[in-house]
């Protein structure tokens, strides 16, 4: 299947309040084409809510409910389970809609973590999409658990002291039916993963890397370019897993097998204003080497993890 063969269904109408170059809107367009019309979405406070339009207007064509920040796991899980009851009892007829969350890294890594962990453990029946722009971009770029080391945010004004956690791996270790990571630079890989997830029952988690031109401070035209560099440098890893069994995908698999050399890290980090302090630092080379070491370490770790549970 080629990108031009995708459905013409659009989850977002023109006129969204999102920034120029917004990766979240690109992501929603792709997942909408895979999920189709019989779906309902839950949104926690984030750019996706702030940019949707003021009451009574909306830029979304899918039925959506804005929920509280820590509620994603329980709300989607509760709605999916309630729908099961309503269809079983004959109170609704037809095919049960796909239930999904469209939630940022704050609502996933930080405030929503407990609810998601509980939900994954219970194997609640929905797809959680984490659109990871590595910060609280909606409130003006504060650090989150997904913000990488040395990145400037308004609450890490000298650069974040510690790296991000490996949230997708944490979800995989709950051993749900499906966990995947994806990138906007590889839309057909994302599309395939959403379509695969759509046909599975139970807890499914897909995290999409979302370079944010506003928070990261790079030109709005370069969203896809930055997405691609993140994967090619190994800073963002593409993989999928079922019931705890992990497979590296695409470029990430090539990097892990040594069939491909990682792209120079500076190509990815230098254009990002959030690393400007690091690049001006006398310890620049040391810091870059440390980031490179961590990227390598993470790749090696995930490749090793993929060898378990063949």
């Amino acid at each position, binding site marked *: 299947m080629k990108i031009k063969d995708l459905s013409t269904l659009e989850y977002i109408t023109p006129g969204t309040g999102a920034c120029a170059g917004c990766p979240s809107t690109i992501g929603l367009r792709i997942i909408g084409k895979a999920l189709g019309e019989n779906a309902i979405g839950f949104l926690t406070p984030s750019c996706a809510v702030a940019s949707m339009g003021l009451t009574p207007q909306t830029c979304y064509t899918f039925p959506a409910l804005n929920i509280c920040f820590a509620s994603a796991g*329980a709300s989607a*899980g509760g709605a999916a389970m309630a729908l099961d009851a309503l269809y079983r009892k004959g109170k609704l007829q037809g095919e049960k809609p796909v239930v999904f969350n469209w939630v940022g890294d704050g609502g996933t890594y930080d405030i929503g973590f407990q609810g998601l962990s509980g939900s994954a453990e219970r194997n609640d029946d929905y797809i959680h999409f984490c659109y990871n722009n590595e910060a609280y971009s909606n409130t003006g770029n504060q650090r989150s658990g997904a913000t990488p080391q040395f990145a400037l945010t308004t609450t890490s004004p000298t650069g974040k002291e510690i790296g991000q956690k490996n949230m997708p791996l944490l979800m995989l270790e709950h051993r749900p039916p499906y966990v995947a990571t994806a990138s906007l630079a590889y839309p057909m890989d994302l599309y395939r993963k959403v379509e695969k997830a759509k046909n599975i029952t139970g807890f499914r988690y897909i995290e999409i890397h979302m370079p944010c031109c506003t928070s990261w401070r790079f030109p709005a035209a370069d969203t896809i370019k930055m997405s691609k560099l993140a994967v090619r440098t190994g800073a963002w890893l593409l993989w999928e897993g079922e019931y705890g069994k992990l497979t590296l995908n695409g470029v990430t698999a090539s990097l892990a097998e040594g069939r491909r050399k990682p792209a120079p890290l500076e190509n990815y980090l230098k254009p990002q204003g959030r690393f400007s302090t690091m690049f001006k630092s006398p310890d620049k080379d040391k810091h870059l080497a440390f980031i490179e070491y961590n990227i390598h370490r993470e790749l090696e770790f995930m490749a090793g993890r993929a060898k378990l549970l063949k």
Partner: protein
Amino acid sequence: MSKVFGSGNTACAMAVKDADVDFVAAYPITPQTAVAEKIAAYIAQGIMDANYLPVESEHSAASAIAAASAVGARVFTATASQGLLYMHEILHYAAGGRLPLVMANVNRAVNMPWCLYADHQDAVSQRDTGWIQLFAASNQEIYDSILLAFKVAEEVQIPVMINYDGFLVSHSMMPFETLDENKIKEYLPPYDPSWRLHPQWGGTFGNVTFSEQYVPYRESLTRDVKRAGELIIRCAREFEELTGRWHGGYFDVYRPEDASFFLLSMGSMGKEMELAVDLLRQEGIPAAGLRLRVFCPFPKEELSALLPTGTNLLVFDRNLVYGSAAGVLLQESRAALYDRRDEIRIAGISVGLGGEDLPASLLADKAREMIQEVKK
């Protein structure tokens, strides 16, 4: 109709079973735990057709039933104390979203320090969330109030909390009667929501507003909370016609004839107060009991209507407004009767905190102290 000898928590769980609930999410907390357990057991035994989400927190319990209500399910949860406090964010959310949730709150003290026993601080701390709040004082009243709660919540599209005292009621065994399925169907028809979060309906819910949209939402909520008071009485009357059971309107009034001293309280204390009234009457003190059943919306006009000119209101709060003389009921009563401040004298105390034992003799003592105070 069958007669059951069971605890308050059993009465609660049986009412939920009988109310054709579609979805329950619950997290265990003393003294609510038996409600969460019994409902899970009914579903496992196949005598209740609902789905049950054993969530990892009360915040998630409330979030789950709110979303389940949005897709059109009849939903229920139960909690107590810290659990209710942990739900606080979602209580505001659900009332604002006009989601007809029903919850049982088994009243218990809040920490620090830890205390497991009856106290209304948990519930009164939720007064301003937009929820309707009822207080039940017997197992029969719990069973009947749960059925009423679904009827009221779904008609006015506002969530309802049924409160009853931890241990004193939740764990007390009393006989109560259930209601036959056909009578329940007559009283509580299947939930037919006006909208659903579903592709057949479409729409986005809870979008951002500015004040010009926000204000009308808030005005309609406060208007409808007020309106819900009349609806509660109407539904209670309808229930009485169907079953012959009546627990009182806004108030369960005890011996009001020729009374000069009205003893106002909520929950199990209100039942004990009847014995205190008897003690006082034996001494020739014309006392009466007012057990408040509807805490939110607070029945200001109805309270005033019960009090003839020249009488006295003695308020017993099982909660405390810190830094104030007593509790929330005293504040609400003073506000309700402000225009009659020259006609009705009011005194109030906080008693029974943390499950402090409240025998009728103690309540009568406290009443006598307050009588001295209002006579000054």
